[in-house]
């Protein structure tokens, strides 16, 4: 028993001191496990999820919705960019950022927290607060902890996650999207005079350090609130599903 206790204490100390290196070493084993689990997850839709439509149809519809949201956001971004460029001819784009591709090596999914660990860390320029996106520019989370060789990404729907967002609703309503129980986000304190509708696209506002504007966060699912109250609330549905990806891109700000 004493030997076991000593071994456990030693293990804890080793894990604590060499967390980054350990994660890097374990990533070799974990990466294929995550890929296998994700593959099964993607191909098992309809078996474990009680889908009313066929798995193929559901995947096609989800892809169609994601594509429409991406196109809508892109159109809005281009329109805004066009206006801005017209107004500021000669403006130099100072967006110095690059994307670092990373593999998910472990996950923890629950109703109260949702995080995953990737195999890139400080040595790759990753910092706390850097956004994690999928290939289409859909934001899935932000880096919440980082070691030399690994980083923990807190999913945007995590209860402890808050993201500065803007709605593509004409008036560009801004707010903070906060994770709530389950896989949804809540956008609060929206003034009553702002017109928010279901299916409005939600993007990052760019008012947050390290997070550029225009990353797609999700769509408005429900708008609630008493019309006589001071503020209205919206429930947001994230577009990115972390259970169906095993690689992400981390957007890293580069020094000027």
């Amino acid at each position: 028993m004493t030997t076991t206790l000593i071994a456990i204490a030693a293990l804890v100390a080793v894990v604590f001191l060499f967390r980054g290196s350990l994660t890097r070493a374990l990533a070799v084993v974990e990466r294929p496990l995550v890929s296998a689990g994700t593959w099964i997850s993607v191909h098992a839709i309809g078996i474990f999820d009680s889908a009313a439509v066929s798995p193929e149809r559901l995947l096609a519809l989800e892809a169609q919705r994601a594509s429409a949201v991406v196109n809508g956001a892109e159109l809005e971004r281009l329109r805004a960019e066009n206006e801005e460029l017209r107004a500021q001819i000669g403006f130099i784009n100072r967006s110095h950022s690059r994307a670092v591709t990373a593999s998910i090596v472990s996950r923890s999914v629950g109703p109260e927290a949702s995080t995953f660990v990737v195999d890139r860390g400080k040595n790759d320029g990753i910092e706390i607060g850097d956004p994690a996106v999928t290939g289409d520019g859909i934001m899935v989370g932000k880096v919440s902890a980082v070691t030399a060789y690994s980083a923990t990404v807190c999913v945007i729907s995590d209860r402890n996650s808050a993201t500065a967002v803007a709605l593509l609703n004409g008036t560009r309503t801004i707010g903070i999207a906060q994770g709530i129980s389950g896989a949804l986000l809540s956008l609060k304190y929206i003034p009553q005079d702002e017109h928010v509708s279901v299916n409005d696209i939600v993007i990052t506002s760019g008012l947050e350090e390290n997070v550029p504007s225009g990353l797609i966060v999700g769509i408005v699912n429900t708008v609630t609130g008493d019309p006589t109250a001071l503020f209205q609330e919206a429930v947001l549905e994230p577009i990115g599903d972390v259970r169906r990806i095993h690689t992400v891109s981390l957007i890293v700000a580069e020094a000027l």
Partner: protein
Amino acid sequence: MMRPTAAIALFLAFSILQTGFFASLTGILAYTPLVVAIGIYLMQHAGERTGPFWIAGFGMFLDLLAIPSFPFETASYAAAGIVAYLSARHLFSNRSWYGLIACGMLSMLSLGAVRALVILGISLRHPERVSWITFGDTLIWNLILITLLLSVLFALARQIRAFLRLGYVVSRGRDPLKPYE
């Protein structure tokens, strides 16, 4: 020194399997409590006292790697480990399927109870951010999944006993089914 090293290697392998493979599965399968089930099996059915350490260790593993499913996982899993130890020794010491399942259920309920306390603390500050329905739903699925896992382990008892008798994880001279002293 070889046995603790082997036990730690096995613990890490199963922890990685849970956080890598099972956590990537869809729906309820993402909540599969693999390490807790093995810890409970080792303690209740195989008589191996390192079982509770597997359970408590998994909480630490989640917190140290910053991938907890709930806040303060070390405390929740430590409580579950203590309950697994006490219930296996004093309450459900009969190594039948019923004893094993009862021990597993009680341990998972204690894990849920500590998590509920944590959630209650959060709900006092942010009542709108807590969904008790989702919490209850997860707990029920955890109980169902641990019952299934323990049943599988119970069915594989002979093979597990043969593996344990090799002496890599427990003493070669000790019968895993020998009653507690």
